[in-house]
């Protein structure tokens, strides 16, 4: 194209040009080295995940097993700091390397450009004549046509591949929002709520319902039990609303497992589990599971006969690997729940199943493997026709409601919390019904109908195990290594009092209008004034206790791990009513029916009663 007049017209220029060339090459080489270093650093950064190193994992697991080990805690902190430092140093190196690389390249470009500037050349006439003007034009036209045809073909292929009739689907969803296939997440949100002021009567400490609901999404509904039906049964962990209060009458207070005194029946449970029994009419439901097998049992309340047992088997979406849990949690720690139409059970691998009262599967779902180092343990609860699930796992806290009839999701609210082992509690405050959840760092309340946030308070930390207790407008939350807080629900909620002398990591507290009973897992019971936190009494049973206390007929029933039921009146002074023994260890909370208590021992299910 061009030829040099004088390649480099003087000796000086030539020297400058060769100097520039050396500089260009040198800076290019240094840039290459920088590139390599950056690449290595980059790979390091990509591979390093300072929060999930093996050492860290092991140490954290050790920490969980031994939470009081302060030295280990300090070591974890130091390693954490070190790995973060290393990470940021590598990032700094990459960034600085990037700048150096840029300047090296810049020097190369400058040198090459300068060489070009110095090496001016004179143009020459191109050897070949250009193609004929008309031929060029014709070729151009031809290729415009080809391109146009390609664009049209490409467009149609894309349309065929991605066609979804989206417009039609949207129109249908707008016209018929209740269509379950159309509106996976939206159904509840398009319901119309109408407050008619109808109020069902019940105990002030229980769940009450105020609203009647006009449902657009009728496909997902087949009604729900009345408050009377709910309180007449024991439909979930810690009874109606999960608040630790039983409404049954004629509750026995003496029995003896060994001699069989007042033991109506005793049934061996095929598979182990730490979930507590629930009762609906004359049926008792529990689950049992091993690492590979998951079962639901229905037992006749009157005879103790296993009416049916359902092998949950492999449900679609169930993870192939088995969940990692610890022995104290097992594979079916969450207690079942029921709405009197179906029973619902969840397992440690996130498998969720709804069964009718004859043991037929209604629907199943897998919620994804719980990211939970002890094993998932939060129990299920019903609000009207909605199955509420607290699913606070590592990195993705959430609470969701599924339609009991179909398993369709009604709503889901994500939560910025750590893993929680506590269970949801539903209370009626007189003004509204609230769903109250405990997880580090908050006690949070939601509208159980649509999942909207009502309030939250930052007052709990650590690995939260106990669920909250509620009475008379006050929520009580506690956790080990944290504190006991009494929160008056209001706008905004107010911290009434707090205490940290006695804390619980497993049993949930129990509240009446006047008193709060706190049970520690080492077997101490403390009675507080619910309104101001005055300590009335402490009683040390000195036996580990995992079950939560239940109030029935004005008495507290507290089962310790050895199977001894500590019965005492819910009063300002401690007085033992009885300490009957089951004759078998237990970690489960009792369930109550009129004249009967159902207790789950380590191996057997017992019915206490005459």
């Amino acid at each position: 194209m061009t030829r040099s007049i004088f390649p480099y017209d003087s000796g000086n220029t030539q020297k400058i040009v060769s100097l520039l060339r050396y500089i260009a090459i040198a800076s290019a080489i240094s840039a290459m080295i920088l590139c390599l270093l950056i690449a290595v650093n980059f790979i390091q950064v990509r591979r390093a995940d300072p929060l999930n190193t093996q050492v860290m994992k092991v140490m954290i697991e050790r920490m969980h097993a031994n939470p009081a080990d302060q030295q280990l805690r300090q070591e974890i902190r130091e390693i954490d700091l070190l790995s973060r430092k290393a990470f940021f140093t590598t990032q700094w190196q990459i960034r600085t390397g990037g700048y150096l690389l840029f300047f090296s390249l810049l020097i190369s470009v400058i040198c090459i450009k300068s060489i070009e500037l110095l090496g001016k050349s004179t143009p020459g006439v191109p050897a070949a004549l250009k193609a004929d003007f008309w031929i060029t034009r014709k070729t151009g036209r031809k290729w415009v046509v080809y391109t146009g045809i390609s664009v049209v073909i490409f467009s149609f292929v894309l349309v065929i591949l991605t066609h979804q009739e989206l417009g039609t689907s949207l129109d249908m969803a707008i016209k018929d929002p209740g269509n379950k296939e159309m509106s996976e997440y939206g159904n509840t949100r398009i319901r119309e709520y109408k407050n008619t002021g109808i109020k069902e009567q019940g105990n002030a400490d229980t769940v009450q319902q105020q609203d009647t609901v006009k449902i657009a999404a009728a496909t997902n509904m087949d009604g729900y039990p009345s408050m009377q039906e709910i309180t007449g049964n024991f439909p979930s962990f810690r009874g109606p609303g999960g608040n630790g209060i039983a409404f049954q009458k004629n509750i026995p207070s003496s029995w003896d497992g060994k001699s069989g005194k007042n033991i109506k029946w005793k049934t061996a449970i095929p598979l182990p589990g730490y979930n507590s029994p629930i009762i609906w009419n004359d049926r008792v439901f529990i689950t049992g599971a091993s690492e590979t097998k998951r079962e639901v049992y229905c037992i006749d309340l009157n005879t103790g006969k296993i009416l049916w047992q359902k092998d949950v088997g492999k449900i679609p979406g169930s993870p192939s690997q088995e969940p990692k849990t610890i022995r104290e949690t097992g594979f079916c720690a969450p207690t079942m729940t029921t709405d009197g139409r179906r029973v619902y059970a969840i397992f440690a691998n996130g498998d969720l199943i709804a069964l009718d009262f004859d043991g037929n599967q209604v629907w199943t779902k897998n919620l994804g493997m719980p990211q939970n180092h002890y094993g998932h343990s939060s129990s299920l609860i019903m609000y009207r026709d909605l199955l509420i699930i607290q699913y606070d796992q590592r990195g993705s806290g959430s609470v969701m409601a599924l339609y009991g009839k179909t398993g369709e999701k009604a709503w889901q609210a994500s939560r910025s919390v750590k893993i929680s082992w506590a269970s949801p509690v539903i209370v009626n405050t007189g003004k509204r019904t609230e769903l109250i959840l405990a997880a580090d760092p908050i006690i949070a309340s939601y509208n159980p109908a649509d999942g909207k946030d009502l309030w939250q308070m930052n007052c709990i930390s650590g690995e939260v195990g106990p669920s909250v207790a509620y009475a008379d407008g006050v929520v009580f939350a506690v956790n080990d290594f944290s504190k006991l807080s009494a929160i008056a629900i209001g706008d905004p909620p107010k911290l009434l009092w707090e205490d940290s002398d006695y804390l619980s990591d497993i049993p949930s507290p129990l509240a009446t209008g006047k008193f709060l009973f706190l049970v520690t897992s080492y077997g101490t019971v403390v009675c507080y004034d619910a309104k101001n936190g005055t300590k009335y009494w402490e009683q040390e049973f000195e036996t580990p206790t995992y079950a939560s206390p239940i109030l029935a007929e004005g008495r507290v029933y507290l089962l310790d791990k050895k199977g001894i039921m500590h019965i005492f009146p819910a009063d300002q002074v401690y007085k033992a009513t009885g300490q009957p023994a089951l004759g078998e260890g237990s970690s489960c909370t009792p369930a109550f029916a009129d004249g009967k208590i159902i207790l789950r021992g380590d191996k057997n299910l017992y019915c206490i009663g005459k």
Partner: protein
Amino acid sequence: MKKRLPTIFLMILFAILMLNGYGVQRFPKPEFESGYLQPETLQPTSRAEILGMLDVIVLAVSMAVVTWLVLKKRSRTGVFWASLFSLAYFGFYRQGCICSIGAIQNITLAIFDSSYGLPLTAIAFFILPLIATLFFGRTFCAGVCPFGAIQDLVSFKPQKLGTRLNTVLGLIPYIYLGLAILYAATKSDFIICRYDPFVGIFRFNASFGMFIFAGTLLVSGIFIARPYCRFLCPYGVLLNWISRFSWKHMTITPTTCIQCRLCEDSCPYDAIDMPVTDKNPESRSTTIRKLILICFLVPFLTVLGGWTISRMHETLAGVNGKVSLARTLLQPEKPTDQPEQVEVTAFKSSGIPAARVYAEASVVLKHFYIGSWVLGCFLGLAFGLTLAFRMVTTYQPDYTPNKGTCYSCARCVDYCPVGGNELTPDKT
């Protein structure tokens, strides 16, 4: 081989430079249990208005200087240094924002959304280069646009691409421009900014994908001069059209062309039109036939384009956040171990009724239907006119820069022996 060494080095280096961009990562905040509160995330304050005005002044002055260098001084070296200044100021100092290319979207959005506050600087950056081009050709591209400057800098061994590639690739900017306007008009996205290849380099923070893109453009730019300007730049489409009507475009020869052919291969962008010396190259009947064909072809292609692209309005609408959320919500949920999409999580915690999302998505979809008809018609028209321009010709005895595609870089002027030129073109 020796001469090619720097080129090869640079190619490898630029490729590895991309890794640097990939190395930029976010790190999770540490979690404190001691009650330490994380400091609030601070947003940078917007740039002072006075500095925005300074940008506009620098733009205007730079264009004036480059125009003077091209038209009066006919100095390639001057243009080169001016482009380096622009690269430093608009590129590395102003970090590629605001730029005239992206301003297309601001202007479009302001037209379709009355609530959008259009910055004055955006108007100035959009309008000033167009006005300058209407008078003096694409001098903005020559030495003011930082994107052009960075590509010019690496254009060490430009090769001819030939008619086919030039034609096919030259149609891409129309598609890009059309899509950018469609997405801005429907308030979906600013795709020019999202897929801006050079801003990541100017800011030292490109994502991996964008570094790959920028690296590819710069490495290919060693052999294909200004690939982004020629085959992607949507603003270039507007400049190309306006420049065709420019009042005083630069010329290769200062006086009369002597047909020496010395400049024939001088343009790295294939922007020099060959002389057409025949005053009546075609018979009258052929010309009439061609004109009739054009009269039918252009409207036909316009309608065909509109109809074709309107078929894909749902696909195109997938970019819109509302439509994609509605689409996800409409899909039956499958059990999966995959974490939920953040958009869905955010929606679910927002308390917004799904019906509202569906209704809004439906409105957006309708806008996309209209928009894709317009986009298709525009593309059909662009293809039709490109064909038409290739059917007709005018008498033109000299080697002239094509007013549409010439960047007024003034490389070719050094090749012209007329007027006592020294014939020592540099390759900058």
